[in-house]
């Protein structure tokens, strides 16, 4: 089907709404995981910190406030159905406009600056930002948009290591665990650990980002062997005692998510991307009749 000009205005509105919704309304899976962490902590400081986190989520709900002051780097994961005839450059422009509108009309802090001059356009955009990933769905008439405002306390704790095949899976696990000890308090624990394995250096890092930011807590990698490694690493990380905000306690990570890709015979890449406890994301599905359904 062909799409009218109105559709792009709708996308712009949806992207504006998604950015604001993501900043205010934490997904139910994240809330549940934090509640469990609060209940399980016995260390007094850790319990105190978790109670502030729970109170923060309530205040954000009641007063329609931002969960965290870091409005993040705006990232959109867009899936386009095969049966919808879209003008993708126009779609891209609609996403960028929605991002600007959210920032200036709400308003909230623009966290984006140019890389060398450090100039802030005050609208959360800049050269190549927002970051937009396009994917495609077969036999679908829908457009799906997942918005992630990626906080930088956690983003600054990102790693890539081009291990070699002889390092094996054990080398990968060791690198991950050593990195977590190193980053400690910085990415606002309890956090989600996103792991990319395989691919090339760029794909590996992208997979780590997807693992950290797009998957609900409680989801497992469909490959049972990888799901087992996710669980094993989660248990291991939670034995380190880093705890909420790195001041000690039993919950350091809420989840470990792994995403992988085939790789070159000479490579054994691993990437780590951390998502803080304020694991914000918001999703919308727009169907061919321009009905919008919001979710997480």
């Amino acid at each position: 089907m062909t799409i009218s000009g109105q559709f792009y205005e709708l996308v712009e509105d949806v992207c504006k709404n998604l950015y604001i919704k993501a900043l205010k309304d934490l997904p139910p899976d994240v809330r549940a995981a934090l509640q469990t962490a609060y209940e399980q902590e016995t260390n007094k400081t850790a319990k105190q910190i978790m109670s502030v986190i729970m109170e923060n989520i309530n205040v954000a709900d009641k007063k329609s406030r931002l969960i965290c002051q870091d409005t993040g780097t705006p990232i959109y994961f867009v899936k386009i159905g095969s049966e919808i005839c879209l003008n993708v450059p126009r779609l891209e422009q609609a996403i960028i406009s929605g991002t600007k509108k959210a920032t200036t009309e709400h308003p909230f802090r623009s966290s984006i600056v140019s890389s060398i001059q450090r100039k802030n356009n005050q609208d959360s955009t800049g050269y190549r930002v927002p970051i937009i990933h396009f994917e495609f769905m077969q036999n679908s008439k829908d457009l799906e948009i997942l918005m992630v405002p990626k906080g930088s306390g956690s983003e600054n704790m990102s790693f890539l290591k081009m291990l070699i095949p002889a390092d094996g899976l054990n080398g990968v696990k060791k690198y991950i665990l050593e990195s977590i000890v190193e980053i400690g308090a910085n990415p606002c624990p309890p956090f989600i650990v996103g792991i990319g394995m395989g691919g090339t250096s760029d794909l590996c890092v992208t997979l780590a980002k997807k693992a950290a930011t797009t998957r609900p807590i409680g989801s497992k990698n469909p490959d049972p062997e990888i799901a087992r490694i996710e669980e094993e690493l989660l248990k291991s990380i939670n034995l380190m005692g880093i705890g909420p905000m790195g001041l000690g306690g039993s919950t350091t990570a809420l989840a470990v998510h792994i995403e992988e890709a085939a790789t070159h015979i000479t490579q054994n890449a691993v990437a780590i991307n951390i998502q803080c406890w304020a694991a914000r994301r918001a999703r919308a599905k727009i169907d061919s009749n321009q009905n919008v359904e919001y979710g997480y």
Partner: protein
Amino acid sequence: MTEYRLQTPLSEEDVRKLKIGDEVTLDGIIFGIRDANLIRMFDKNVPPPVDLNGSACIHTAPSVRKVEGGYEKISVGTTTSMRMDRFTPGLMGQYGVRAIIGKAGMKEPSMEAMKKFGGVYLAIVGGAAAWETDKIESIEGAFWEDLMPEAIWKFRVKGLGPLIVAMDSYGNNLYLDVKKKAIESLPKILEKLGIS
């Protein structure tokens, strides 16, 4: 563990009595500082346009709305302190800052400054901006507005806390204690996974 309710400005005596693990709740004025304004202060040697003597400074850049005669709060939260570690000696030695409020802690340069001049690091819950914004009564000023959002902010707070004393004026650092234990736990964790 002792709980304190303190009014800013803080004296050396106020902060010297604090030990790691204590909890502090603050009332009065606090200043918002971070990367860009600290770079101007110390790398470009421009003195701050506010009196920081005895102050508590929070690592932040808030979301605000410009209104008649100033700014209205939208979201005030705390950023990662480690990036600002090297500025603490100047803040405390040159300008008399007594407390840094931040998240994730700092290292040797700040620990040394806190020991030498009498200062503390008060840990706030990172990411809990909705909660923190509730404790901000008003924005009383913004200085160096050209650095927006990284201006120097003057906030009036009521009941900001409990904040956890994570670094005290005796060289103790709760983050480093926790990290040391995590490092020590690693060989056993790896052994369990069959990794040498």
